[in-house]
């Protein structure tokens, strides 16, 4: 009944595409125009919060190892908090701009979790490669939401954040449970399906 792990990655990738497009559009039009309609203000923070909530069942049902469960739980926590913080900021319920640090913290923690819970080297299989790549991308990319925390109207910071989410989506879409990476596939990785 459960979907393959790769499918869960693809569904979340689609969510990241949606959020990335919204953030990128906000960078293009500016915060003032983006916030002219109330529903739009809540759009991508709401999507991020929903994805954070959806990560909880992922943590519960995909327990192939304890470290996976811890990693998924960490993502669920940080993404839910980041989405909630952005929702609170959008609604004006949260006033301190320090809440904007929730997004870079979420990305950095997620990146570290990717790196820590991947036990295999880069070229073990495609999934291993992408875990390393996603980890470092998220750790380095956290600088964009961090810059946005200090300069909320910076088009570069917001645009970089949007592009980062689209890049993360592309990496997640490339994920397969067992597949070669640049011709490398460890014999210990298993047999590719489909």
């Amino acid at each position, binding site marked *: 009944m459960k979907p393959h792990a790769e499918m869960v990655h693809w569904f979340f990738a689609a969510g990241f595409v949606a959020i990335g497009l919204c953030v990128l559009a906000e960078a293009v039009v500016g915060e003032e125009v*983006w916030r002219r309609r109330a529903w739009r203000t809540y759009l991508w923070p709401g999507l991020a919060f929903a994805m954070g909530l959806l990560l909880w069942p992922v943590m519960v049902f995909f327990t192939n190892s304890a470290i996976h469960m811890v990693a998924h739980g960490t993502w669920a926590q940080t993404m839910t908090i980041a989405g909630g913080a952005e929702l609170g900021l959008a609604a004006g319920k949260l006033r301190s701009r320090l809440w904007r640090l929730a997004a870079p913290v979420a990305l950095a923690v997620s990146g570290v979790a990717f790196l820590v819970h991947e036990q295999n080297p880069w070229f073990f299989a495609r999934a291993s490669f992408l875990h390393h790549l996603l980890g470092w991308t998220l750790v380095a990319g956290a600088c964009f939401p961090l810059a946005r925390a200090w300069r909320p109207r910076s088009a570069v910071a917001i645009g970089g954040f949007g592009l980062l989410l689209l890049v993360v989506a592309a990496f997640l879409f490339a994920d397969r449970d067992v597949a070669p990476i640049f011709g490398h596939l460890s014999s210990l990785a298993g047999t590719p399906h489909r």
Partner: protein
Amino acid sequence: MNTQIATESAPARSRRSVRARVVASLGPLTAAVGVAWGVLQPWRVTLLHPAGQGFWWLLAEPPLLVVAAGIAFALLVAPGLVADLEDTGR
């Protein structure tokens, strides 16, 4: 008293700003990327060969998810955003 029998037409609305065009193109561009991906890797679209596939394989179609995200943005977000952008004269 106004003796003009034909009023001057309002100046034609200026062409869409670069920002409006960028916003309007984000959705179609994303959908086009999804279509191109489906063409380049048709095996990622299970609907093209659905025989014997289970529920999740028929639901999880990465290129179509990209297309869906692009279409959703183009239909639900971009039109209002472009209108607001033009209202503010940017």
